[in-house]
């Protein structure tokens, strides 16, 4: 597909998505779409790091901070989410830097990085549970209903508004993904994920590059948490924070495809539709079945299809991908004769 063709496809798709709630108004289906969009955004945020081999199980923590800080500021101090969301994002970003800097500085990679981030999401979960006087602990927390201006409180009753907000946020995530994909950082990070020492020797500032992408990813995940909280108006430590949420992000991103921009979105569509179908089809009998299917799929995918559904399909669709590679090789030859 040519560049113009692709842009046109995006534009048509987007126009259809924007027009959808004005044509089709079934509240339940819109609700599912909003959830898909919000979670897609969260999964995309995770995959920004995940695609470079920085597998974090701490994103449940960032999401929890986004949701809880926004809600707590609103309920206790009466600060509008318009202020609360940036504050919560800054909080999550600060945490990401505090944990990320030493991690990257001291070369904590692979298993060790996964386990440090696991501890991080454990901490956030336990702090939320421990401060139950303020956060309601594991019983969950509800932001107060706004008495005055709905816009100021970022609380809307109709699904259409939320659909458009979620669509905007999701689109923002995709745009950021593409922005990173085109930047120099992407090449630096890919080099780092292949061989950290070689990348450092080639002049890549390993710590700084990793920190940048971690910060970006954490900020976006916190935003996803805050939006989720504003939409659902009810959060519990288990739905927005902790290890289960982190694993859920990893799972959806991998099933959809970690290395393509719409992969995490595709993962969200599959996982949420699967959960909803099972819930409607089997009712309360289906408790647990969705996760059972997820788990089996996750294992099968990692063994047989590590690029995910969308990634593998796209690979099949364009075998002529070799073309640009050869071209790049030539460019290298010209730049470095004899290499």
């Amino acid at each position: 597909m040519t560049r113009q063709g692709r842009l046109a496809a995006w534009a048509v798709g987007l126009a259809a998505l924007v027009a959808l709630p004005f044509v089709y108004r079934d509240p339940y289906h819109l609700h599912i779409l909003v959830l898909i969009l919000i979670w897609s955004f969260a999964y995309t945020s995770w995959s920004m790091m995940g695609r470079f081999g920085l597998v974090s199980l701490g994103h449940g923590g960032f999401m929890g901070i986004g949701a809880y800080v926004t809600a707590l500021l609103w309920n206790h101090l009466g600060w509008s989410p318009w202020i609360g969301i940036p504050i919560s994002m800054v909080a999550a970003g600060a945490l990401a830097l505090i944990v990320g800097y030493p991690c990257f500085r001291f070369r904590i990679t692979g298993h060790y990085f996964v386990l440090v981030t696991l501890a991080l999401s454990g901490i956030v979960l336990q702090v939320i549970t421990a401060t139950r006087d303020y956060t309601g602990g594991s019983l969950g927390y509800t932001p107060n209903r706004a008495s005055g201006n709905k816009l100021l409180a970022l609380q809307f009753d109709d699904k259409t508004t939320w659909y458009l907000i979620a669509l905007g946020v999701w689109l923002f995530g995709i745009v950021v993904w593409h922005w990173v994909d085109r930047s120099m950082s992407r090449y630096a990070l890919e080099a780092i994920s292949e061989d950290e020492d070689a990348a450092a020797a080639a002049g890549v500032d390993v710590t700084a590059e990793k920190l940048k992408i971690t910060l970006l990813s954490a900020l976006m995940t916190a935003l996803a948490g805050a939006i989720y909280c504003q939409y659902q108006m009810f959060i519990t430590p288990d739905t927005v924070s902790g290890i289960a949420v982190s694993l859920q992000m990893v799972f959806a991103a991998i099933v959809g495809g970690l290395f393509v921009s719409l992969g995490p979105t595709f993962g969200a569509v599959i996982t949420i539709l699967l959960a909803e179908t099972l819930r409607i089809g089997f009712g309360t009998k289906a408790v647990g079945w969705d996760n059972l299917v997820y788990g089996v799929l996750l294992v099968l995918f990692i063994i047989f299809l590590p690029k995910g559904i969308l990634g593998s399909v796209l690979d099949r669709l364009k075998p002529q991908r070799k073309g640009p590679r050869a071209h790049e090789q030539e460019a290298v030859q010209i730049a470095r004769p004899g290499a």
Partner: protein
Amino acid sequence: MQAFLDIFDIYLLEAVINGILLGGVLALLALGLNLIFGVIDVTWICYAELVMIGMYAMYFIVQYYGLSYFIAAPFTILLVAILGAALHYLVIAPLLTAPPINQLLATGGVLFVLQSFATVAFGIDFRNLGIRLPVLAFGDMNFSYARLLSFLAALVGMVAVYLFMTRTFTGTAIRAISQDRQIMALMGVDTKRMYLITSALGGALAGLAACLLVLQYDVHPFVGLSFGPITFLICVLGGLGNFIGGFIAAFVFAEIISLGGLFSDLEWGYVLAFAFFIVMMFIRPAGLLARRR
């Protein structure tokens, strides 16, 4: 004795001793995981879920079939050992050459499977064995008999593993593999078989831990999440694959949780332990006992 007890806060002492008892069980949990990591170089994220399945097995054998606790325990250990071997055969073996992250994530998938299998099969009710062991009173301090028993059983289990690893041919081969994966195959050791044995052994340790934990805690499908993360952190803190480091780290963690719980809520004990872990990762990234390279 009384004078000694007067100097120390009695609750403090009680917390310290309870911490040591808790440390025994944590050390046992960490031992199985360390074994797997040291030999196969894989992290079983679903390790605590194997323990959970073992706890359910104990519950059903004792409550449903009415067998005694001590007959049920060997069955449970055997069952979880088979599960461990199956996990290796079905999930880890096809991924041995894949990036380590993929192995870790695949066992994350198994975590989902086991958890939701338990939810589907057993429901989300909390169940307990119905065995109430007496509480030991010592001075003004109270210790649960179950904890003491677990501590002792954990020690026995660890000594048994130590003897197995040092005194038998298989154990020696396992230790050799953990030192050099490639060469051992050339020395005529069947690596695949050793991996299976190690996985079964790791599973058996999880089963033993299950037998002990079921005495103290109610079992439900998500019980693994309450001690799973702590177990990983202990292994990492001790240095993945380092048995003695894991042993020491287990007691350090148990004391932090126990003492933190004394001064505030139990959750803050966990927060402290997690924070301690993160700080330690920066000071000694390769574990408590790592030699400086």
